[in-house]
Structures are given as structure tokens and as C-alpha cells.
């Protein structure tokens, strides 16, 4: 009895904490989405109320979809994010495999060098990066963004993935070698599927900062045809007048793809985070 009651109490407490946290975390998102469907006046008069027949308005969405090239920005963001994600995962996993699997001189040093980027923000190098991009004629291309984001994402990817790859059974890899599989097939067919949860974890951590980034698009690719969504939304924020309807609408639209990608990865993610905790 005693233990049953205390476990009910404990689970109520746990739920209360989790629910509070969920509300705090979701509150800004919900406010953004709610207000994106309201008239400008209603946004300011009663920011926390749901849109109703009087205050409901799609003017924000109309502005976003007609002014500026929203679909182009959207497409740019998607291309840059997915391409960077692909490069980070592929090269990160390959580097991690090499570090985890092969003994060579300077292995540890190389691992530390590759992990250094976790501690040093890439933005410190902005000036040099810009010079580099100007010199190589990559300014105002999506390639420039993909390159920078790949560099930005790799350190964490290598760090996390090499830890996971060390846990993949040596026997399995050796069995593959005895059966005559090439190192590439061992990597792609045997090892990668086993570290999928870790890949999903890395994917989410890489994805979100890239999708939300304003800095590099602003500096490296501000041209109309390479603008990303975050940069594109800035046209609605003026120094003196801000079109809040449009800002909120474009933010709501920008949340969608990140949410979808997150949902795709999250099932794997949970396994990734808890792997090794219980076993």
C-alpha cells in the first residue's frame, strides 16, 4: 500500500513537472501561430486570446505569399538545410568510423582537432570565411552556405558518432572482413544501420541551427535569388514599422518543415539518447 501510494504521488509530481515544462516550451510557439491568424489590432489588443470571428484574418499569410518570393526562400532554405545535413552526416560518419576503427599515428590528436570546433564558434571566422568566399567566387550561392554549415556541423557529428561507432561489435566488422566485404560495405551496410539512432540525434542537433540561421545567409548570400526563409522574413521587420502579421505568418510557416523533419527523426532520437543508459 505504502509503496503504491507513494508511487502515485511520485508520478503525479513527475507529470506536473513535465506538463509545466511542456507548457513553457510550447507557449511561444502557440502564441505565434495563434496571432498569425489575427488582425493587426487584435494582436496588440488581446495577444493571448484565440482568434475568433471578429479578430480572424489571413492578411499576414496573404502578405507573405504575395510580397517577396516566399516559395523561393522556402526552397532555398530547404535545399541548403538538406544538403548540409547530408554532407554533415556522410562525412561526419566516415570520419568517425576512421577514428573509431583504424589505429594510426596521431589518431587521438586528429580526434581532438576535429572536436575542437565544438568549442570555437564558427562565427568568429566570419571575416575570413567571407574573404574566402569572395576569392572563390561563391558569394551569393547556396553552395557557400552548404559549405559553411557542413563545417559548422561536422565537429559535433564526428564527436558523437565516433563514440557510438566504438560500441559497434568488432566481431561483426571482422566477420564482414573474413567474408570479403570491402571497408566501404562494412561501413555502409553493417555499421551505419547500427548507429542509426545516433545519426538521428546528430541530424536534429545539426538541422535546427541551420534552418534558423540568419547570420550566414545575411553575410554570404543576401541576394534575392539565394535568400533563405529566415532572411526573407526580415523584410517585414523594419526599423520603424514592423508588419507583425506577416512576420508571425512567415514564422509559423517556417516552423512547419523543421517540425516535420524533427518528427521523422525523433523516434530514432529517443532511442539514441537513451541507448547505453539501460542495457
Amino acid at each position, binding site marked *: 500500500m505504502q509503496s503504491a501510494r507513494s508511487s502515485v504521488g511520485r508520478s503525479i509530481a513527475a507529470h506536473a513537472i513535465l506538463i509545466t515544462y511542456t507548457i513553457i516550451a510550447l507557449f511561444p510557439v502557440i502564441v505565434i501561430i495563434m496571432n498569425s491568424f489575427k488582425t493587426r489590432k487584435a494582436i496588440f489588443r488581446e495577444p493571448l486570446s484565440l482568434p475568433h470571428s471578429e479578430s480572424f484574418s489571413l492578411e499576414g499569410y496573404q502578405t507573405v505569399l504575395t510580397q517577396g518570393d516566399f516559395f523561393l526562400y522556402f526552397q532555398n532554405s530547404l535545399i541548403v538545410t538538406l544538403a548540409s545535413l547530408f554532407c554533415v552526416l556522410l562525412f561526419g560518419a566516415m570520419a568517425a568510423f576512421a577514428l573509431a576503427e583504424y589505429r594510426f599515428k596521431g589518431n587521438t590528436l586528429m580526434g581532438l582537432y576535429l572536436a575542437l570546433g565544438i568549442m570555437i564558434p564558427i562565427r568568429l571566422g566570419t571575416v575570413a570565411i567571407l574573404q574566402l568566399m569572395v576569392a572563390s567566387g561563391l558569394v551569393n550561392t547556396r553552395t557557400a552556405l552548404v559549405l559553411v554549415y557542413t563545417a559548422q556541423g561536422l565537429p559535433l557529428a564526428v564527436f558523437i558518432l565516433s563514440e557510438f561507432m566504438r560500441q559497434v561489435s568488432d*566481431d*561483426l566488422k*571482422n*566477420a564482414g572482413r*573474413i567474408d*570479403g*566485404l570491402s571497408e566501404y560495405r562494412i561501413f555502409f551496410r553493417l555499421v551505419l*544501420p547500427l548507429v542509426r539512432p545516433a545519426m538521428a540525434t546528430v541530424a536534429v542537433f545539426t538541422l535546427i541551427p541551420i534552418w534558423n540561421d540568419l547570420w550566414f545567409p545575411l553575410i554570404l548570400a543576401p541576394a534575392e535569388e539565394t535568400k533563405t526563409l529566415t532572411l526573407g522574413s526580415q523584410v517585414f521587420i523594419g526599423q520603424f514599422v514592423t508588419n507583425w502579421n506577416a512576420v508571425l505568418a512567415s514564422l509559423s510557416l517556417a516552423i512547419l518543415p523543421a517540425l516535420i523533419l524533427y518528427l521523422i527523426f525523433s523516434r530514432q532520437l529517443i532511442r539514441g539518447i537513451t541507448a547505453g543508459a539501460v542495457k
Partner: protein
Amino acid sequence: MGSLVLSDVHKSFGAVDVLKGIDLEVSDGEFVIFVGPSGCGKSTLLRVIAGLEDATNGTVNIDGEVVNQTPPSDRGIAMVFQTYALYPHLTVKDNMGLGLKQAKHAKTEIAKRVDVASKMLSLDPLLERRPAELSGGQRQRVAIGRAIVRKPELFLFDEPLSNLDAALRVNTRLEIARLHRELGATMVYVTHDQTEAMTLADKIVILNDGKVEQVGSPMELYHNPTNRFVAGFIGSPQMNFIDAANLGKTDCKTIGIRPEHISLDLKKGEIEGIVSHIEKLGGDTNVYLNCGDIGLLSVRLFGDHDYAIDAKAFATMAADSVFKFDGDGNRVQVA
């Protein structure tokens, strides 16, 4: 066909020398077992033979050819791992066939060989399953099947039974013995388990700290160990070692006697002691005798015996089964 010759094989990981000059000859069709304490380099040696690690020094010669530079898949070997190491994404059938597929064998040939192996190990009902859907024993049979289909000249086993429960271990052990008879291939096998070593091996290699201590048939090692390490390693319970000075002998440093070569009597005998513990195994009885300066003696008696704890008893050693060792642990051969 599947002979193996190791000459002066060294292996170091950085500054750590794991193998310190292994010389060994295995003739075709022999069943050789490596035993030794944990960490002595058994698995490392097996991996060097397989080509999964490069020897730092020395040569590995399989079937008359030096294979130091040959990749594992071309060495004519197959390996069975302690953790089974089945490919998780493939069915049992594809697990067994993958090696042949990589070697570009015809589909019909692959199917035929998988079929033969699966009949041999009664895997037929499992062929379409994935490893996750198999029990431990079944997985190990699949791993053995995967080795068989390659038709290797040399099988390498790294503690294949140590993850199985006792009953399954006996069955699989018999299975491996049968396979060795049927296939006639050379087998090199690593184990911790003395029973496995004694029952399966044509030849046992005792390794200690990266060196070979002694090579011989199981009975040779039991009856004629060349040093104290081997004498202590083979036999269970372990051989008793007694400081020779305590027995008033001067021709050697240590005297060794196996528990089964000591008899007990309540009234008279060579060494007096107090019964401190008794283990009844049904078939045998192990009696532990506290003998003062001489230390604890274990005595193995055949059949079911009763001794009261703390009772006084006398032990007598069978004179012709006494081993003598010098200060370095080497056997003093009695002329």
C-alpha cells in the same frame, strides 16, 4: 591442405607486447586448442592468423604459403566468434551465403552449399529468419554454418560456446566434434573451458603472457607437464603445490600433487590435517584439508564420502604421481 605454421610471431599494441614470439606447427586436419588465462593473447593470436591484425614480426604460413600480406577473405579460413557476429539485416540464408556471394560464386552453387550446411546443422526451419528472431544456441549454429559454407581449409573458433548455457554447450561441443570428423578440416579453437579443451583437442597449446608454455596432447599435458604453470592450469581442482622444505625434501623447490592422487585416512598417513570444507558432487567428493605449514590441500575422492568438518585426517600422496619443480618453476625430471 590446411596446415598452419607460425614462426616467431610477435604482436605489439604501441608499447605493449601482447605476443612475444609464438612458434607453432599445426598439421592438416588437426584440432588444436589454445588455452590460457584471460588476457594472455589467445584472441590476438587467432586474429593474427585470420589476418584481422598484422603481426608486428614473424610469419604466418597457411597451407605452405606465407600469408602475411593476404587479406582475410583470401586466406582460406573461416572464423566463428564468441558474440556470433551475424549480420543483423540479413536472413539466416543470406548470412550464410554472403561470403560466397562476395567471392562471386554462382547462385546455384551458393544455394547448394547453404543447403548442405543447413542440413548438417538442422537449420532448415530457420533459413528465412533474421538473427534477432533466433535463440543464442541457434545463432551460434548459424555462425558455424556460415563458416562451413565457405569450405575453408582452416576453421578458427574464438570461444564459440562461452555465451551458451551448460546443456547447450555440451550439445554444441559434440556438434563441433562431429563436424571435425566429417569435414576433416584443420580447426584452431580458443577456450577458457578445460573440459572443452581436454575433450575436443588433438593438441593443446598452453599460452601464458604471450608465450607458448607447452604444446601436447591432452594426456601428455596432464601426465607430463614441463613446468609448474602447465601443471597448475590443467586439471580441476587445481594441482596442490607444497613447499618442499615443509616436507623435509631438498632435491627440489616445490612439490606438486593432483587432488585425485592423494588418499585420505582417519588414522595414519604422511600429512596430518584438519578437514575444513567438503564438496559433494555425487560422483566425486572434494575434501579440503588444512595442514598447518603445508597449507590447504585439496583431495579428490571417487564416490560419495563423509568427513566431519574439523575432524582430524591423514593424507597420503601416491609416490609415482608426485611432480617436482625447481625454483624457476621448471619440472625436475627424475631420471
